Protein backbone atom coordinates (compact mmCIF):
# COMPACT_ATOMS: atom_id res chain seq x y z
CA UNK A 1 0.00 0.00 0.00
CA UNK A 2 1.19 3.48 -0.82
CA UNK A 3 1.32 6.39 1.63
CA UNK A 4 -1.62 8.65 1.17
CA UNK A 5 -1.67 12.31 2.10
CA UNK A 6 -5.20 12.69 3.34
CA UNK A 7 -4.89 16.48 3.52
CA UNK A 8 -4.33 16.55 -0.24
CA UNK A 9 -7.72 15.02 -0.90
CA UNK A 10 -10.26 17.57 -2.04
CA UNK A 11 -13.97 17.62 -1.33
CA UNK A 12 -14.54 17.32 -5.05
CA UNK A 13 -12.55 14.06 -5.06
CA UNK A 14 -14.55 12.72 -2.14
CA UNK A 15 -17.77 13.71 -3.94
CA UNK A 16 -16.58 12.04 -7.14
CA UNK A 17 -15.76 8.81 -5.25
CA UNK A 18 -19.21 8.88 -3.69
CA UNK A 19 -20.76 9.39 -7.12
CA UNK A 20 -18.93 6.32 -8.40
CA UNK A 21 -20.28 4.29 -5.48
CA UNK A 22 -23.78 5.68 -6.03
CA UNK A 23 -23.59 4.72 -9.71
CA UNK A 24 -22.85 1.16 -8.52
CA UNK A 25 -25.66 1.31 -5.96
CA UNK A 26 -23.17 0.86 -3.13
CA UNK A 27 -22.79 2.56 0.25
CA UNK A 28 -19.03 2.69 0.82
CA UNK A 29 -19.51 2.75 4.58
CA UNK A 30 -20.89 -0.81 4.43
CA UNK A 31 -17.41 -2.19 3.73
CA UNK A 32 -15.42 -3.07 6.87
CA UNK A 33 -12.37 -4.25 4.92
CA UNK A 34 -12.54 -7.95 5.71
CA UNK A 35 -10.86 -8.85 2.43
CA UNK A 36 -13.16 -11.66 1.43
CA UNK A 37 -13.56 -10.12 -2.04
CA UNK A 38 -9.81 -10.26 -2.57
CA UNK A 39 -9.57 -13.79 -1.20
CA UNK A 40 -12.04 -15.10 -3.77
CA UNK A 41 -10.96 -13.01 -6.76
CA UNK A 42 -9.52 -15.30 -9.45
CA UNK A 43 -7.56 -12.39 -10.97
CA UNK A 44 -6.23 -10.78 -7.78
CA UNK A 45 -2.67 -12.00 -8.35
CA UNK A 46 -2.44 -9.94 -11.53
CA UNK A 47 -3.97 -6.77 -10.10
CA UNK A 48 -2.15 -3.65 -8.91
CA UNK A 49 -4.74 -2.83 -6.22
CA UNK A 50 -6.57 -5.65 -4.48
CA UNK A 51 -10.36 -5.40 -4.82
CA UNK A 52 -10.55 -4.54 -1.10
CA UNK A 53 -8.11 -1.68 -1.65
CA UNK A 54 -10.20 -0.21 -4.44
CA UNK A 55 -13.06 0.11 -1.97
CA UNK A 56 -10.71 1.49 0.70
CA UNK A 57 -9.34 4.21 -1.59
CA UNK A 58 -12.87 5.14 -2.59
CA UNK A 59 -13.78 5.44 1.09
CA UNK A 60 -10.82 7.78 1.55
CA UNK A 61 -11.64 9.84 -1.55
CA UNK A 62 -8.37 8.94 -3.29
CA UNK A 63 -9.92 9.53 -6.70
CA UNK A 64 -6.78 9.61 -8.79
CA UNK A 65 -5.40 6.39 -7.28
CA UNK A 66 -8.65 4.61 -8.10
CA UNK A 67 -9.05 6.02 -11.59
CA UNK A 68 -5.44 5.12 -12.48
CA UNK A 69 -5.67 1.59 -11.08
CA UNK A 70 -5.43 -1.34 -13.46
CA UNK A 71 -7.60 -3.52 -11.26
CA UNK A 72 -11.03 -2.54 -12.63
CA UNK A 73 -9.71 -3.16 -16.15
CA UNK A 74 -8.35 -6.59 -15.23
CA UNK A 75 -11.61 -7.60 -13.49
CA UNK A 76 -13.48 -10.19 -15.56
CA UNK A 77 -16.87 -9.34 -14.01
CA UNK A 78 -17.32 -12.83 -12.58
CA UNK A 79 -19.20 -11.42 -9.54
CA UNK A 80 -17.60 -13.79 -7.02
CA UNK A 81 -16.58 -10.78 -4.86
CA UNK A 82 -20.10 -9.37 -4.64
CA UNK A 83 -21.58 -12.79 -4.11
CA UNK A 84 -19.35 -13.58 -1.11
CA UNK A 85 -19.32 -10.14 0.54
CA UNK A 86 -20.75 -10.49 4.06
CA UNK A 87 -21.96 -6.89 3.84
CA UNK A 88 -23.56 -7.29 0.39
CA UNK A 89 -21.32 -4.67 -1.14
CA UNK A 90 -21.57 -5.06 -4.91
CA UNK A 91 -17.83 -4.77 -5.57
CA UNK A 92 -18.24 -6.00 -9.12
CA UNK A 93 -20.55 -3.08 -9.94
CA UNK A 94 -18.05 -0.74 -8.33
CA UNK A 95 -15.40 -2.07 -10.73
CA UNK A 96 -17.66 -1.22 -13.66
CA UNK A 97 -18.43 2.24 -12.34
CA UNK A 98 -14.72 2.95 -11.68
CA UNK A 99 -13.86 1.79 -15.17
CA UNK A 100 -16.46 4.04 -16.74
CA UNK A 101 -15.30 7.00 -14.61
CA UNK A 102 -11.68 6.27 -15.51
CA UNK A 103 -12.58 6.29 -19.19
CA UNK A 104 -14.50 9.57 -18.87
CA UNK A 105 -11.42 11.03 -17.17
CA UNK A 106 -9.36 9.91 -20.19
CA UNK A 107 -7.23 7.45 -18.19
CA UNK A 108 -7.91 3.85 -19.25
CA UNK A 109 -4.71 2.34 -17.74
CA UNK A 110 -5.10 -0.87 -19.75
CA UNK A 111 -6.02 0.33 -23.24
CA UNK A 112 -6.51 -3.23 -24.53
CA UNK A 113 -9.50 -3.84 -22.27
CA UNK A 114 -11.10 -0.60 -23.43
CA UNK A 115 -10.34 -1.25 -27.09
CA UNK A 116 -11.90 -4.69 -26.84
CA UNK A 117 -15.18 -3.35 -25.45
CA UNK A 118 -15.31 -0.43 -27.91
CA UNK A 119 -14.70 -2.73 -30.84
CA UNK A 120 -17.30 -5.16 -29.55
CA UNK A 121 -19.95 -2.44 -29.35
CA UNK A 122 -18.89 -1.00 -32.73
CA UNK A 123 -19.32 -4.47 -34.25
CA UNK A 124 -22.81 -4.82 -32.74
CA UNK A 125 -23.66 -1.27 -33.83
CA UNK A 126 -22.72 -2.11 -37.42
CA UNK A 127 -24.31 -5.56 -37.70
CA UNK A 128 -26.77 -5.99 -34.82
CA UNK A 129 -24.83 -9.09 -33.83
CA UNK A 130 -21.20 -9.67 -32.95
CA UNK A 131 -19.09 -11.18 -35.73
CA UNK A 132 -16.32 -12.74 -33.70
CA UNK A 133 -13.77 -13.03 -36.49
CA UNK A 134 -14.04 -9.33 -37.38
CA UNK A 135 -14.05 -8.35 -33.72
CA UNK A 136 -10.83 -10.29 -33.17
CA UNK A 137 -9.24 -8.78 -36.27
CA UNK A 138 -10.26 -5.23 -35.37
CA UNK A 139 -9.02 -5.76 -31.82
CA UNK A 140 -5.64 -7.01 -33.01
CA UNK A 141 -5.20 -4.05 -35.35
CA UNK A 142 -6.28 -1.39 -32.83
CA UNK A 143 -4.43 -2.89 -29.88
CA UNK A 144 -1.27 -3.50 -31.90
CA UNK A 145 -1.24 -7.19 -30.90
CA UNK A 146 -1.37 -8.24 -34.52
CA UNK A 147 -0.47 -11.87 -34.04
CA UNK A 148 -2.54 -12.58 -30.95
CA UNK A 149 -4.61 -15.75 -31.36
CA UNK A 150 -3.73 -15.93 -35.07
CA UNK A 151 -2.91 -19.62 -34.72
CA UNK A 152 -6.31 -20.13 -33.12
CA UNK A 153 -7.98 -18.17 -35.94
CA UNK A 154 -6.51 -20.66 -38.43
CA UNK A 155 -7.77 -23.54 -36.30
CA UNK A 156 -11.26 -21.96 -36.27
CA UNK A 157 -11.25 -21.50 -40.03
CA UNK A 158 -10.24 -25.12 -40.48
CA UNK A 159 -13.23 -26.18 -38.39
CA UNK A 160 -15.50 -23.85 -40.36
CA UNK A 161 -16.38 -22.12 -37.09
CA UNK A 162 -15.70 -18.78 -38.67
CA UNK A 163 -15.62 -17.70 -42.28
CA UNK A 164 -15.51 -14.49 -44.23
CA UNK A 165 -19.29 -14.06 -44.29
CA UNK A 166 -20.78 -11.37 -42.06
CA UNK A 167 -23.95 -12.04 -40.11
CA UNK A 168 -26.38 -9.17 -39.89
CA UNK A 169 -29.54 -8.56 -37.97
CA UNK A 170 -32.27 -7.27 -40.32
CA UNK A 171 -33.06 -4.51 -37.87
CA UNK A 172 -29.43 -3.47 -37.47
CA UNK A 173 -30.26 0.19 -38.04
CA UNK A 174 -32.72 -0.15 -35.16
CA UNK A 175 -29.96 -1.63 -33.02
CA UNK A 176 -27.59 1.18 -33.98
CA UNK A 177 -30.25 3.76 -33.03
CA UNK A 178 -30.83 1.94 -29.74
CA UNK A 179 -27.11 2.02 -28.92
CA UNK A 180 -26.96 5.73 -29.73
CA UNK A 181 -29.98 6.47 -27.54
CA UNK A 182 -28.55 4.44 -24.64
CA UNK A 183 -25.16 6.12 -24.85
CA UNK A 184 -26.79 9.55 -25.12
CA UNK A 185 -28.89 8.83 -22.02
CA UNK A 186 -25.72 7.72 -20.24
CA UNK A 187 -23.85 10.88 -21.24
CA UNK A 188 -26.76 13.10 -20.21
CA UNK A 189 -26.92 11.46 -16.79
CA UNK A 190 -23.19 11.97 -16.23
CA UNK A 191 -23.32 15.60 -17.37
CA UNK A 192 -25.97 16.12 -14.70
CA UNK A 193 -23.96 14.35 -11.97
CA UNK A 194 -20.86 16.28 -12.92
CA UNK A 195 -22.59 19.66 -12.73
CA UNK A 196 -24.04 18.67 -9.36
CA UNK A 197 -20.59 17.69 -8.08
CA UNK A 198 -19.03 20.87 -9.41
CA UNK A 199 -21.70 23.09 -7.86
CA UNK A 200 -21.51 21.31 -4.49
CA UNK A 201 -17.70 21.54 -4.54
CA UNK A 202 -18.00 25.26 -5.27
CA UNK A 203 -20.44 25.71 -2.43
CA UNK A 204 -18.09 23.96 -0.03
CA UNK A 205 -15.09 25.85 -1.42
CA UNK A 206 -16.88 29.16 -0.86
CA UNK A 207 -16.84 28.66 2.91
CA UNK A 208 -13.05 28.66 3.06
Amino acid at each position, binding site marked *: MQTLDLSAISDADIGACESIAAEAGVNLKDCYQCGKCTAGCPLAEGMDLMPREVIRYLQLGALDTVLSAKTPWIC*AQCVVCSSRCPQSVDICSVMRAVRQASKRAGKRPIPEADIFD*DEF*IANVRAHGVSNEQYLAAAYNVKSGHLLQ*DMGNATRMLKRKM*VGVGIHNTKGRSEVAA*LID*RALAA*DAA*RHAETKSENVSSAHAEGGDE
Partner: protein
Amino acid sequence: MPMRYAYFPGCSANTTGKSFTVSTNYVADKIGFELAEIPDWNCCGTSAAALTSPELEVALPARSLAISERELPGLDVVASCAGCYRSLRTSLTYARKSEGNIGHLRELINMPYEAKANVVSLLEAFSDEDVRTAIAEKVTRKLRCLKVACYYGCAMVRPADVCGDFDDEEDPQSMDELMKLIGAEPVDWAYKTECCGAAQQMAVPKQAKPMIERIFENAAANGADCIVTSCPLCMLNLDMREAEINKARVAAGKAPFDIPCYYFTELIGLALGGDVKELGIDIHFHPAEKLLLVRELDALELEEAERAAAAEEARKKAELAAKIAAKKAEKAAKEAAAKEAAAETQATQTAVQTATQDAATQATDAGEGAAE
Protein backbone atom coordinates in the same frame (compact mmCIF):
# COMPACT_ATOMS: atom_id res chain seq x y z
CA MET B 1 -44.23 -28.04 -17.69
CA PRO B 2 -42.91 -26.24 -20.74
CA MET B 3 -41.48 -28.14 -23.67
CA ARG B 4 -41.69 -25.10 -25.93
CA TYR B 5 -39.63 -21.92 -25.61
CA ALA B 6 -38.72 -18.77 -27.48
CA TYR B 7 -35.08 -19.33 -28.33
CA PHE B 8 -32.27 -16.76 -28.07
CA PRO B 9 -29.32 -18.43 -29.86
CA GLY B 10 -26.69 -15.71 -29.28
CA CYS B 11 -23.90 -14.57 -31.60
CA SER B 12 -21.69 -17.63 -31.14
CA ALA B 13 -24.45 -20.08 -32.09
CA ASN B 14 -23.31 -20.42 -35.70
CA THR B 15 -19.62 -19.81 -35.15
CA THR B 16 -17.51 -20.79 -32.15
CA GLY B 17 -20.50 -22.35 -30.41
CA LYS B 18 -21.59 -24.42 -33.43
CA SER B 19 -21.31 -27.74 -31.61
CA PHE B 20 -23.52 -26.40 -28.79
CA THR B 21 -26.20 -25.47 -31.33
CA VAL B 22 -26.17 -28.70 -33.33
CA SER B 23 -26.14 -30.87 -30.20
CA THR B 24 -28.95 -28.80 -28.64
CA ASN B 25 -31.05 -29.22 -31.78
CA TYR B 26 -30.31 -32.93 -31.89
CA VAL B 27 -31.47 -33.46 -28.30
CA ALA B 28 -34.48 -31.15 -28.75
CA ASP B 29 -35.61 -33.12 -31.84
CA LYS B 30 -35.23 -36.44 -30.06
CA ILE B 31 -37.26 -35.49 -27.02
CA GLY B 32 -39.82 -33.21 -28.65
CA PHE B 33 -38.48 -30.02 -27.05
CA GLU B 34 -39.41 -27.05 -29.22
CA LEU B 35 -37.17 -24.02 -29.75
CA ALA B 36 -38.84 -21.17 -31.62
CA GLU B 37 -36.05 -18.75 -32.61
CA ILE B 38 -36.82 -15.12 -31.77
CA PRO B 39 -37.08 -13.37 -35.15
CA ASP B 40 -34.40 -10.77 -35.82
CA TRP B 41 -32.82 -10.99 -32.37
CA ASN B 42 -29.71 -8.90 -31.73
CA CYS B 43 -26.53 -9.28 -29.67
CA CYS B 44 -27.15 -9.20 -25.90
CA GLY B 45 -24.17 -6.89 -25.42
CA THR B 46 -22.65 -9.15 -22.75
CA SER B 47 -19.93 -7.71 -20.48
CA ALA B 48 -18.83 -5.20 -23.15
CA ALA B 49 -22.18 -3.39 -22.91
CA ALA B 50 -22.28 -3.63 -19.12
CA LEU B 51 -18.78 -2.15 -18.93
CA THR B 52 -19.66 0.59 -21.39
CA SER B 53 -22.87 1.91 -19.85
CA PRO B 54 -25.66 0.74 -17.52
CA GLU B 55 -28.24 1.99 -20.05
CA LEU B 56 -26.70 -0.03 -22.85
CA GLU B 57 -26.47 -3.09 -20.59
CA VAL B 58 -30.25 -3.24 -20.11
CA ALA B 59 -31.37 -1.85 -23.49
CA LEU B 60 -29.60 -4.28 -25.85
CA PRO B 61 -31.23 -7.45 -24.45
CA ALA B 62 -34.61 -5.70 -24.05
CA ARG B 63 -35.05 -5.31 -27.82
CA SER B 64 -34.91 -9.09 -28.37
CA LEU B 65 -37.17 -9.70 -25.38
CA ALA B 66 -39.69 -7.16 -26.70
CA ILE B 67 -39.68 -8.83 -30.15
CA SER B 68 -40.20 -12.20 -28.48
CA GLU B 69 -43.13 -10.81 -26.50
CA ARG B 70 -44.73 -9.54 -29.72
CA GLU B 71 -43.94 -12.46 -32.05
CA LEU B 72 -43.97 -15.41 -29.64
CA PRO B 73 -46.47 -14.35 -26.99
CA GLY B 74 -46.86 -16.58 -23.97
CA LEU B 75 -43.50 -18.29 -24.41
CA ASP B 76 -40.68 -18.02 -21.91
CA VAL B 77 -37.28 -17.32 -23.37
CA VAL B 78 -34.42 -19.80 -23.24
CA ALA B 79 -30.80 -18.76 -23.77
CA SER B 80 -28.11 -21.38 -24.23
CA CYS B 81 -25.03 -19.18 -23.78
CA ALA B 82 -24.35 -18.23 -20.14
CA GLY B 83 -23.31 -14.71 -21.13
CA CYS B 84 -26.55 -14.15 -23.06
CA TYR B 85 -28.51 -15.68 -20.18
CA ARG B 86 -27.02 -13.28 -17.64
CA SER B 87 -27.51 -10.25 -19.91
CA LEU B 88 -31.14 -11.10 -20.65
CA ARG B 89 -31.83 -11.77 -16.97
CA THR B 90 -30.13 -8.50 -15.96
CA SER B 91 -32.38 -6.57 -18.33
CA LEU B 92 -35.49 -8.47 -17.22
CA THR B 93 -34.68 -7.96 -13.52
CA TYR B 94 -34.20 -4.24 -14.16
CA ALA B 95 -37.47 -4.01 -16.10
CA ARG B 96 -39.46 -5.79 -13.41
CA LYS B 97 -38.07 -3.67 -10.59
CA SER B 98 -40.25 -0.61 -11.21
CA GLU B 99 -42.67 1.09 -13.58
CA GLY B 100 -40.08 3.82 -14.02
CA ASN B 101 -37.47 1.30 -15.14
CA ILE B 102 -39.67 -0.39 -17.72
CA GLY B 103 -40.81 2.98 -19.02
CA HIS B 104 -37.19 4.02 -19.44
CA LEU B 105 -36.47 0.77 -21.28
CA ARG B 106 -39.39 1.32 -23.66
CA GLU B 107 -37.95 4.73 -24.51
CA LEU B 108 -34.48 3.31 -25.08
CA ILE B 109 -35.65 0.46 -27.34
CA ASN B 110 -38.49 2.48 -28.87
CA MET B 111 -40.87 -0.48 -28.71
CA PRO B 112 -43.76 -1.67 -26.56
CA TYR B 113 -42.51 -4.01 -23.83
CA GLU B 114 -44.17 -5.40 -20.70
CA ALA B 115 -41.47 -7.82 -19.44
CA LYS B 116 -44.03 -10.62 -19.33
CA ALA B 117 -41.90 -13.58 -20.30
CA ASN B 118 -39.40 -15.22 -18.00
CA VAL B 119 -35.84 -15.98 -19.11
CA VAL B 120 -34.23 -19.33 -18.33
CA SER B 121 -30.98 -21.01 -19.25
CA LEU B 122 -30.98 -24.19 -21.31
CA LEU B 123 -29.64 -25.96 -18.24
CA GLU B 124 -32.68 -24.85 -16.25
CA ALA B 125 -35.10 -25.78 -19.03
CA PHE B 126 -33.53 -29.25 -19.30
CA SER B 127 -33.67 -29.72 -15.53
CA ASP B 128 -37.46 -29.60 -15.58
CA GLU B 129 -38.92 -32.93 -14.48
CA ASP B 130 -40.86 -33.48 -17.74
CA VAL B 131 -37.78 -32.83 -19.85
CA ARG B 132 -35.68 -35.12 -17.64
CA THR B 133 -38.29 -37.85 -18.03
CA ALA B 134 -38.33 -37.34 -21.81
CA ILE B 135 -34.53 -37.66 -21.87
CA ALA B 136 -34.54 -40.74 -19.63
CA GLU B 137 -37.10 -42.45 -21.89
CA LYS B 138 -34.94 -41.93 -24.98
CA VAL B 139 -31.57 -42.98 -23.57
CA THR B 140 -30.16 -45.77 -25.69
CA ARG B 141 -26.64 -45.79 -24.33
CA LYS B 142 -25.59 -44.88 -20.81
CA LEU B 143 -22.28 -43.02 -20.68
CA ARG B 144 -20.98 -45.17 -17.87
CA CYS B 145 -17.35 -44.96 -16.70
CA LEU B 146 -17.10 -41.35 -17.95
CA LYS B 147 -15.98 -39.19 -15.03
CA VAL B 148 -17.15 -35.65 -15.64
CA ALA B 149 -16.30 -32.36 -13.96
CA CYS B 150 -19.43 -30.25 -14.43
CA TYR B 151 -18.30 -26.69 -15.08
CA TYR B 152 -21.01 -24.04 -14.74
CA GLY B 153 -18.83 -20.92 -14.90
CA CYS B 154 -20.00 -17.69 -13.33
CA ALA B 155 -22.85 -16.30 -15.40
CA MET B 156 -25.17 -19.29 -14.89
CA VAL B 157 -25.37 -18.66 -11.15
CA ARG B 158 -24.11 -15.16 -10.39
CA PRO B 159 -25.28 -12.63 -9.36
CA ALA B 160 -28.00 -14.42 -7.41
CA ASP B 161 -30.43 -11.48 -7.55
CA VAL B 162 -30.27 -11.72 -11.35
CA CYS B 163 -29.90 -15.47 -11.91
CA GLY B 164 -32.47 -16.39 -9.27
CA ASP B 165 -32.40 -19.40 -6.99
CA PHE B 166 -32.58 -22.05 -9.72
CA ASP B 167 -29.24 -23.46 -8.60
CA ASP B 168 -26.64 -22.95 -5.87
CA GLU B 169 -24.07 -20.18 -6.35
CA GLU B 170 -21.13 -22.14 -4.97
CA ASP B 171 -22.07 -25.78 -5.56
CA PRO B 172 -24.68 -26.01 -8.32
CA GLN B 173 -26.13 -29.45 -9.08
CA SER B 174 -28.38 -29.20 -12.16
CA MET B 175 -25.74 -30.31 -14.67
CA ASP B 176 -24.46 -33.00 -12.29
CA GLU B 177 -28.00 -34.37 -12.10
CA LEU B 178 -28.36 -34.40 -15.89
CA MET B 179 -25.06 -36.24 -16.20
CA LYS B 180 -26.19 -38.84 -13.67
CA LEU B 181 -29.39 -39.25 -15.67
CA ILE B 182 -27.35 -40.41 -18.69
CA GLY B 183 -25.11 -42.67 -16.63
CA ALA B 184 -21.99 -40.48 -16.39
CA GLU B 185 -20.21 -40.01 -13.06
CA PRO B 186 -19.89 -36.40 -11.90
CA VAL B 187 -16.82 -35.81 -9.72
CA ASP B 188 -16.82 -33.53 -6.71
CA TRP B 189 -14.49 -30.62 -7.45
CA ALA B 190 -13.82 -27.07 -6.36
CA TYR B 191 -13.90 -25.05 -9.58
CA LYS B 192 -17.51 -25.50 -10.69
CA THR B 193 -18.27 -21.80 -10.70
CA GLU B 194 -14.79 -20.28 -11.02
CA CYS B 195 -14.49 -17.82 -13.87
CA CYS B 196 -12.81 -18.91 -17.14
CA GLY B 197 -11.64 -15.34 -17.74
CA ALA B 198 -14.31 -14.62 -20.35
CA ALA B 199 -13.27 -11.82 -22.75
CA GLN B 200 -10.30 -11.00 -20.53
CA GLN B 201 -8.50 -13.94 -22.17
CA MET B 202 -8.20 -11.58 -25.13
CA ALA B 203 -7.77 -8.23 -23.38
CA VAL B 204 -5.41 -9.23 -20.53
CA PRO B 205 -4.19 -12.73 -21.48
CA LYS B 206 -1.12 -12.60 -19.21
CA GLN B 207 -3.23 -12.14 -16.08
CA ALA B 208 -6.10 -14.33 -17.24
CA LYS B 209 -4.28 -17.43 -18.50
CA PRO B 210 -3.67 -18.93 -15.01
CA MET B 211 -7.44 -19.02 -14.46
CA ILE B 212 -7.83 -21.67 -17.16
CA GLU B 213 -4.85 -23.66 -15.97
CA ARG B 214 -6.26 -23.82 -12.43
CA ILE B 215 -9.60 -25.11 -13.70
CA PHE B 216 -7.89 -27.95 -15.59
CA GLU B 217 -5.62 -28.64 -12.61
CA ASN B 218 -8.52 -28.99 -10.19
CA ALA B 219 -10.55 -31.15 -12.56
CA ALA B 220 -7.54 -33.46 -13.04
CA ALA B 221 -6.76 -33.56 -9.31
CA ASN B 222 -10.28 -34.76 -8.60
CA GLY B 223 -10.12 -37.59 -11.08
CA ALA B 224 -12.19 -36.10 -13.91
CA ASP B 225 -11.74 -37.46 -17.44
CA CYS B 226 -13.24 -34.39 -18.97
CA ILE B 227 -14.92 -31.05 -18.31
CA VAL B 228 -18.55 -30.49 -19.23
CA THR B 229 -19.62 -26.93 -19.98
CA SER B 230 -22.84 -25.02 -20.49
CA CYS B 231 -21.44 -21.90 -22.16
CA PRO B 232 -19.76 -21.40 -25.54
CA LEU B 233 -17.28 -18.85 -24.19
CA CYS B 234 -16.21 -21.11 -21.30
CA MET B 235 -15.88 -23.87 -23.89
CA LEU B 236 -13.74 -21.77 -26.21
CA ASN B 237 -11.49 -20.55 -23.41
CA LEU B 238 -10.93 -24.06 -22.07
CA ASP B 239 -10.97 -26.22 -25.18
CA MET B 240 -9.12 -23.88 -27.56
CA ARG B 241 -6.53 -22.71 -25.04
CA GLU B 242 -5.69 -26.09 -23.56
CA ALA B 243 -3.01 -26.53 -26.24
CA GLU B 244 -1.20 -23.27 -25.44
CA ILE B 245 -1.40 -24.01 -21.71
CA ASN B 246 0.03 -27.47 -22.32
CA LYS B 247 2.85 -26.00 -24.36
CA ALA B 248 3.79 -23.70 -21.49
CA ARG B 249 3.48 -26.56 -19.00
CA VAL B 250 5.74 -28.82 -20.99
CA ALA B 251 8.28 -25.99 -21.30
CA ALA B 252 8.14 -25.62 -17.51
CA GLY B 253 8.71 -29.35 -17.04
CA LYS B 254 5.12 -30.07 -16.01
CA ALA B 255 2.92 -32.80 -17.45
CA PRO B 256 0.43 -31.58 -20.06
CA PHE B 257 -3.31 -32.03 -19.48
CA ASP B 258 -5.34 -34.42 -21.55
CA ILE B 259 -8.81 -33.28 -20.62
CA PRO B 260 -11.34 -32.93 -23.43
CA CYS B 261 -14.25 -30.54 -22.95
CA TYR B 262 -17.85 -31.18 -23.99
CA TYR B 263 -21.11 -29.31 -23.97
CA PHE B 264 -23.63 -31.02 -21.72
CA THR B 265 -25.92 -31.26 -24.74
CA GLU B 266 -23.28 -33.22 -26.67
CA LEU B 267 -23.11 -35.87 -23.96
CA ILE B 268 -26.90 -36.06 -23.68
CA GLY B 269 -27.01 -36.37 -27.49
CA LEU B 270 -24.54 -39.28 -27.34
CA ALA B 271 -26.69 -41.02 -24.74
CA LEU B 272 -29.71 -40.56 -27.02
CA GLY B 273 -27.89 -42.36 -29.81
CA GLY B 274 -26.23 -39.51 -31.70
CA ASP B 275 -22.77 -39.90 -33.22
CA VAL B 276 -19.83 -37.59 -32.70
CA LYS B 277 -20.15 -35.97 -36.14
CA GLU B 278 -23.79 -34.99 -35.94
CA LEU B 279 -23.21 -33.63 -32.42
CA GLY B 280 -20.19 -31.54 -33.43
CA ILE B 281 -17.78 -33.38 -31.15
CA ASP B 282 -15.45 -33.99 -34.10
CA ILE B 283 -14.59 -30.28 -34.44
CA HIS B 284 -13.33 -29.68 -30.91
CA PHE B 285 -9.83 -28.24 -30.54
CA HIS B 286 -8.56 -30.72 -27.98
CA PRO B 287 -9.17 -34.23 -29.37
CA ALA B 288 -12.48 -35.29 -27.83
CA GLU B 289 -13.40 -38.52 -29.62
CA LYS B 290 -10.82 -40.96 -28.25
CA LEU B 291 -11.84 -40.59 -24.61
CA LEU B 292 -15.43 -41.38 -25.55
CA LEU B 293 -14.32 -44.53 -27.38
CA VAL B 294 -12.10 -45.59 -24.48
CA ARG B 295 -14.93 -45.08 -22.02
CA GLU B 296 -17.44 -46.78 -24.33
CA LEU B 297 -15.19 -49.84 -24.36
CA ASP B 298 -14.75 -49.56 -20.58
CA ALA B 299 -18.52 -49.42 -20.22
CA LEU B 300 -18.95 -52.50 -22.43
CA GLU B 301 -16.27 -54.37 -20.50
CA LEU B 302 -17.82 -53.27 -17.25
CA GLU B 303 -21.19 -54.44 -18.49
CA GLU B 304 -19.65 -57.77 -19.49
CA ALA B 305 -17.95 -58.09 -16.11
CA GLU B 306 -21.18 -57.17 -14.41
CA ARG B 307 -23.05 -59.73 -16.47
CA ALA B 308 -20.44 -62.36 -15.63
CA ALA B 309 -20.56 -61.36 -11.97
CA ALA B 310 -24.33 -61.51 -12.05
CA ALA B 311 -24.21 -64.92 -13.74
CA GLU B 312 -21.66 -66.11 -11.17
CA GLU B 313 -23.83 -64.72 -8.41
CA ALA B 314 -26.86 -66.47 -9.88
CA ARG B 315 -24.86 -69.68 -10.24
CA LYS B 316 -23.74 -69.46 -6.61
CA LYS B 317 -27.28 -68.80 -5.52
CA ALA B 318 -28.55 -71.71 -7.59
CA GLU B 319 -25.79 -73.86 -6.13
CA LEU B 320 -26.75 -72.86 -2.65
CA ALA B 321 -30.40 -73.37 -3.44
CA ALA B 322 -29.56 -76.81 -4.84
CA LYS B 323 -27.57 -77.64 -1.72
CA ILE B 324 -30.40 -76.43 0.41
CA ALA B 325 -32.88 -78.43 -1.63
CA ALA B 326 -30.65 -81.50 -1.36
CA LYS B 327 -30.30 -80.99 2.35
CA LYS B 328 -34.00 -80.49 2.69
CA ALA B 329 -34.68 -83.63 0.65
CA GLU B 330 -32.18 -85.52 2.74
CA LYS B 331 -33.80 -84.22 5.86
CA ALA B 332 -37.24 -85.05 4.57
CA ALA B 333 -36.10 -88.54 3.55
CA LYS B 334 -34.58 -89.10 6.97
CA GLU B 335 -37.69 -87.84 8.62
CA ALA B 336 -39.83 -90.03 6.38
CA ALA B 337 -37.63 -93.03 7.15
CA ALA B 338 -37.82 -92.27 10.84
CA LYS B 339 -41.53 -91.89 10.55
CA GLU B 340 -41.78 -95.16 8.66
CA ALA B 341 -39.65 -96.90 11.22
CA ALA B 342 -41.76 -95.45 13.96
CA ALA B 343 -44.86 -96.51 12.15
CA GLU B 344 -43.43 -100.00 11.71
CA THR B 345 -42.55 -100.22 15.37
CA GLN B 346 -46.00 -98.95 16.15
CA ALA B 347 -47.47 -101.51 13.80
CA THR B 348 -45.39 -104.28 15.30
CA GLN B 349 -46.33 -103.19 18.75
CA THR B 350 -49.95 -103.01 17.76
CA ALA B 351 -49.66 -106.40 16.12
CA VAL B 352 -47.99 -107.81 19.20
CA GLN B 353 -50.59 -106.18 21.39
CA THR B 354 -53.37 -107.45 19.21
CA ALA B 355 -51.85 -110.90 19.14
CA THR B 356 -51.45 -110.84 22.91
CA GLN B 357 -54.94 -109.61 23.31
CA ASP B 358 -56.21 -112.20 20.86
CA ALA B 359 -54.37 -114.91 22.66
CA ALA B 360 -55.71 -113.65 25.97
CA THR B 361 -59.22 -113.51 24.61
CA GLN B 362 -58.86 -116.95 23.19
CA ALA B 363 -57.50 -118.20 26.46
CA THR B 364 -60.33 -116.56 28.33
CA ASP B 365 -62.78 -117.98 25.85
CA ALA B 366 -61.21 -121.39 26.25
CA GLY B 367 -61.33 -121.09 30.05
CA GLU B 368 -64.90 -119.95 29.95
CA GLY B 369 -65.71 -122.81 27.55
CA ALA B 370 -64.05 -125.33 29.82
CA ALA B 371 -65.99 -123.97 32.75
CA GLU B 372 -69.17 -124.38 30.85
